[in-house]
């Protein structure tokens, strides 16, 4: 039975992958903090969708559990936690001064995606081993997600988009992970879910402290610590 469904699942998974990548682009390009959070939630839901599709045939309770865990922690608990910890006015803020303007940012992001495809090409399995089709979709897109998250981190100057870029990097790693390492122990998955929440909590506290101390969450402006230049 599972044989007949595989092309359909594969196609749907490719769609989820495409949208996953699109949401990563969205995080690079939106100026508003709230928009960035929305794109992150969408990305997490697409990660979960891909886990469900991968776990559908042959049926894998493990991957379904991973998908559910992702939805609960990343698209529900995490935004709730961040909303509680960081003041509302931060979310409506718009970043006017990004390090790189948005059109060139998108071009660089495009370059990163191409780079991810070339980089991951030698790792891809040859032939038609079980699950190889999924790996061919998820591995390059996951790597691209990782790189785009890192790029978001590098160009954004506000605290929350940087935090979301960090989490997007992890999303990218897991997007590849659900395909290449589906046998990961459930203990590890649970620990990761816990870890994501601790991360959001700690950086949320830190963001609040920065806000109270400097009157702004623009962490890109924090640049007092450095060495004396050579004379």
């Amino acid at each position: 039975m599972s044989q007949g469904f595989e092309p359909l699942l594969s196609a749907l998974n490719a769609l989820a992958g495409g949208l996953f990548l699109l949401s990563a682009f969205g995080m690079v390009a939106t100026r508003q903090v709230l928009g960035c959070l929305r794109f992150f939630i969408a990305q997490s839901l697409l990660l979960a969708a891909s886990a469900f599709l991968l776990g559908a045939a042959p049926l894998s309770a493990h991957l379904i559990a991973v998908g559910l865990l992702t939805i609960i922690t990343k698209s529900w608990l995490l935004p709730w936690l961040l909303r509680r910890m960081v003041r509302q006015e931060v979310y409506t803020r718009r970043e006017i001064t990004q390090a790189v303007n948005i059109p060139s940012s998108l071009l660089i992001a495009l370059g990163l995606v191409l780079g991810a495809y070339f980089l991951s090409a030698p790792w891809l399995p040859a032939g038609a081993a079980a699950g190889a089709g999924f790996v061919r979709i998820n591995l390059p897109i996951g790597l691209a997600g990782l790189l785009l998250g890192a790029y978001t981190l590098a160009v954004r100057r506000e605290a929350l988009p940087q935090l979301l870029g960090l989490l997007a990097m992890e999303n990218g790693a897991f997007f590849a992970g659900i395909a290449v390492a589906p046998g990961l122990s459930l203990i590890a998955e649970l620990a990761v879910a816990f870890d994501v929440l601790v991360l959001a909590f700690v950086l949320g506290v830190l963001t609040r402290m920065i806000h109270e101390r400097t009157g702004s969450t623009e962490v890109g402006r924090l640049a007092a610590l450095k060495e004396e230049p050579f004379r």
Partner: protein
Amino acid sequence: MILIAILALPLLAAAVCGLSGSERWSPRVTLLAALANLLLAGEVALRAAGGETIVALPHWIAADGLSALIALLITAVGTSAALFSWGYMAHSTQKPRALRLYYVNFNLFLFAMLAVPLLAEPNLVWIAVELTTLFSVLLVSFADTHDALEAAWKYAVLTLSGAAIALFGFLLLFWAWQTAGGGPYSWATLRAAAGAMPPRLLQAAFLLILVGFGAKVGLVPLHTWLPDAHSQAPTPVCALLSGVETSAVLYVILRLLPLLGPASQGRAWALAFGLLSAGVASFLLLRVRDYKRLFAFSTVEQMGIVLAAAGLGSGAASYAALLQIVAHALGKSFCFYAAGSAALLSGTTEIAGVRGLLRSSPLGGIALLLGGLTIAGAPPLALFLSEFSILKAGLSGGQYLAVALLTLFIAVAFFGILRHILPMVFGKPLPQSVNRKLPRSVVLTLLLAALPLFVLGVYLPEQLSALLRVAAAALTHLAR
């Protein structure tokens, strides 16, 4: 059981510190738990030195020689840092709530660091490394000043994004492992199956983890956060961050080296990365203005030396690299205790603000001088012996270029460190120095932490060298 006790004690201490009504108990409970853990880790190390692997939960929690060595160092520096905190932190803050949170985080941080060597499942080790960052971020930001917050944010963002890159590597590693047959997943089974795993995946995984966790070890070019965080944190935390946290993460990279076969480029990368870090840091040392930053840059240099030594590849070089980890953990933590004392005495961490410390406080002056000499690698102190062994191992392996570069960097760092330290100790005292008395626990820490620096410079106890031999054997590739 003993391993579970080692992991449980800091958690218990954190709970007691968090829940108890009175702040007076926090430093005592923390010190007591750290001391008990030191004894337990010593017992584990003694058993591991005999070649035994101590197992608590098969494939989940286990300690061989290498793990026991790192755990022992963490508990040793944890104990001295807890003792130092007692007197020092009471001077740093008047707010009881902040102090309580400090001790809760301190114990959680110790727990996360101990989990890194004692967990045997690599994916869980990744989480433990991530937790070491998360539990220490709020320690770095403890002072709640503009600078401390900047340092904490950079620390969190750079090391956590490094961890995400390493995560990709760990997932590839797990994939390679499953391709080779799978089964129970642990460092030991992974090493036994190394020959059967696809080399291309293995190399990619290694490189991603080297770069990702390299950010946390402080390897150039991702070292930029390290001098900030390691100088802004409260001094006992600096001792933990610089002395053992970096080594605990480097331990994970070392665990991967034996997976790579002789045909792989992995060791060459490790050597190149190590040399680059040692070189850049030794020159950056020359132009610091803050003496805590001076010691932090020296950590980057030392980690580079250890990684380069491990990259040399021979058994003697692995042994010397581990000896260097031991000497650095003890020496660098002592440096920060001396720096913290100097800061208490003078009220500043600017190099230019401290002059003639020896005259205003003989103990503080001698401690700073000893710290500087130790970490610069002067004979007959602990780091001289280990750096000498590394150079000797490189020479007997015929890696002359690497040895020449290492010698140059060590010499530059030696000059750089002493150029800053000597005037601080001997110069003419400044008129406006504060001159406070050092708290008793600080004095006691300085005396106790100085002992091993002298001992390890001239004499290596038989049990320790047995442990180092067992641990170094874990770094060699198993031929199939």
